[in-house]
């Protein structure tokens, strides 16, 4: 029987540095951990004592890649705490910015991190000479996504325009129309990316699990919605995944019932589990839960990519991300049309401060993100709780690894290592984290 010992040392930031430790003796897993050793960040402690109007500019600094998502969750939670309802224009613009962030993050992940693997290169750097057109296309799509975010937020990393109940300044209609043109023109590059990814082979692995994402009856939910859990059913006879499954909904007030946090010794990022155990968040969870509400063009892309919901192969998260790029691009065009039809209006963005407590759930590229704040009469933050997507996925990744390892024990050390790295990378825990996994060391 196989004995394997793997020590993947120093994955960076999932909110952190991390390691994979695997020890298999005579075919039995003795040790399997995804250790998160990143310097703890302490945002919850840092927010306490600050002003209500600083929460967004502080908490967006948790992540450079999901800065707009953190901002959105922070603003919505603070608005809930203060009893503020933002205008329709504010909501449309925030949705537009969030789409830009999904596009940016997904393009970065699929084309800069996953593609090198599938094209047999150690990173995107050598691809700049061997696959120049692919890289130029990737850069074009990313540039567009950066400009897309920056048009609404003022700066693509840590936007300077966002505030509770509105914006410091609003985008010009002409600039929105120009972005619309570029989004329309990007369809060709997106199509080329779909063809590229469709031609690549992803590992075949399934595990019946639980998926959690926001959902709404009227749209594919990113900005808001009801927290929804979905557990697909498998046919008792053939093992085939059925379209039906168990669906449960949780109002935002009950977010702690889904994301039940525990501190585990080997991880500076807390683990979470629902009542059913570990669960997955992110693009795959969203597409599984909300497939019917995808834009028709995104459904077409799903078909071209061989994606059938519900899909229980975690490696397909990359494909789900690409499906979302199509959706976000098309929906951004629709949002801009709506904004231009209404005309951009200067609005009253004043806020009356009062004591309160509020939470919000927002879908950011890596999954559902929770922010909750409590403020006192003067608007000082007295408590904050933030639950981050990558943290929610860690437990699930460990369970996937447990299911995957016995199926791949006959492979070579290198192949096992690569499979484990690819699995973690498929969850897109955070760019650096995923790449750093490649420093795998075998200790056995």
């Amino acid at each position: 029987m196989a004995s394997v010992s793997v020590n993947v040392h120093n994955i960076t930031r999932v909110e952190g540095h991390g390691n994979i430790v695997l020890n298999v003796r005579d075919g039995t897993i003795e040790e399997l951990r995804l250790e998160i050793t990143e310097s703890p960040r302490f945002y919850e402690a840092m927010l306490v004592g600050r002003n209500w109007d600083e929460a967004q500019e502080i908490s967006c600094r948790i992540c450079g890649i999901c800065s707009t998502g953190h901002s959105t969750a922070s603003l919505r939670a603070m608005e809930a705490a203060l009893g503020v309802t933002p205008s329709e224009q504010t909501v449309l613009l925030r949705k537009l910015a969030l789409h830009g962030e999904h596009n940016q993050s997904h393009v970065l992940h699929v084309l800069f991190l996953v593609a090198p693997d599938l094209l047999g290169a150690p990173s995107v750097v050598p691809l700049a000479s061997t696959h120049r057109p692919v890289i130029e296309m990737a850069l074009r799509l990313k540039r567009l996504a950066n400009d897309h975010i920056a048009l609404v937020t003022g700066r693509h990393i840590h936007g300077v325009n966002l505030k509770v109940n509105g914006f410091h300044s609003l985008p010009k209609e002409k600039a929105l129309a120009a972005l619309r043109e570029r989004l329309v023109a990007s369809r060709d590059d997106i199509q080329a990316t779909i063809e590229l990814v469709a031609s690549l082979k992803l590992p075949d692995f399934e595990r019946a699990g639980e998926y959690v994402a926001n959902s709404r009856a009227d749209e594919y939910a990113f900005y808001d919605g009801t927290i929804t859990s979905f557990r697909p059913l498998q046919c008792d006879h053939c093992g085939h995944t059925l379209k039906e499954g168990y669906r449960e909904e949780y109002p935002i007030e009950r977010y702690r019932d889904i994301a039940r946090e525990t501190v585990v010794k080997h991880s500076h990022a807390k683990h979470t589990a629902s009542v059913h155990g570990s669960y997955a968040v992110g693009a795959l969870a969203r597409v599984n839960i909300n497939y019917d509400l995808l834009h028709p063009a995104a459904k077409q892309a799903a078909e071209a990519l061989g994606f059938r919901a519900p899909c229980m192969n975690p490696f397909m998260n990359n494909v789900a991300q690409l499906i979302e790029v199509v959706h976000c691009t098309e929906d951004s065009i629709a949002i801009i049309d709506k904004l231009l039809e209404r005309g951009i209006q200067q609005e009253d963005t004043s806020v009356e401060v009062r004591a309160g407590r509020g939470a919000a759930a927002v879908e950011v590229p890596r999954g559902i993100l929770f922010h909750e704040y409590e403020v006192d009469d003067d608007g000082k933050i007295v408590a904050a709780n933030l639950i981050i997507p990558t943290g929610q996925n860690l437990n699930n990744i460990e369970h996937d690894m447990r299911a995957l390892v016995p199926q791949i024990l006959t492979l070579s050390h290198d192949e096992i290592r690569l499979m484990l790295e690819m699995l973690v990378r498929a969850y897109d825990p955070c760019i650096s984290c995923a790449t750093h996994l490649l420093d795998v060391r075998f200790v056995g």
Partner: protein
Amino acid sequence: MSAKPKVAFFSFTGCEGCQLAVLELEPVLLDILGAVDIVSFREAMTEHSEDYEIAFVEGSISTPHDVEEVQHIRQRAGLVVAIGACACSGGLNALKNRRGMDDVLQTVYGSSGSWFETIPARPVSAVVPVDLELPGCPMDGNEFVWAVKSLLRGEMPKLPQIPVCVECRLKGNVCVLAHKGKHCQGPITIAGCGAICPSHGGHCVGCRGYLAHPERDAHMEILQEHGLTVDEVRAQYSLFNTYSEMAREAAS
């Protein structure tokens, strides 16, 4: 410096937004890749080498392990360049420094706090000598390109010591010095960002750090004239610059 210097990127406690700012230089990224030899960049690369001349360091130093690692980097690199507020001034991470470390551990991890280790967050220069600091949260991409070009020519770039106000004026903005109980830190903050925050209708929160000889007393006086209290002004100084503010308080 060699014709195609070997450069490496490292990241400590921070959001990695500054490394992302490098990746986001799409129009010139391919040119930069042609001019230097990037041997380590874990946000984007698998390859890693210990042989480098310039080390770009992002993030604050906030664990005993960070301290060791940055010392190791200093020993190997000819030049150490700190990028972003976290690395240059401690940035937002230093907000936790006002509270005891046990206290912050307990707030976040509860009774399991003692499993983990943390030290007050500090800038890279508090641990090892730093040759150049490119401040901002995030670091300004254009400034990074300008600095790299100078370094490639064998020159050490020098950031002009002028306040954000100068850039703000050039943009033709209306001054937001004291507005709705908030105040703009432009008069005492190092320029270089194009006064992006006031230009968008916000106010400068000092993310690029303060000038070497800021007119603090005058700033404080004017703000008091506008009805802000000393405590309010101090609290706002302590957003991105808690580390230097605490050092000032300790010294006075």
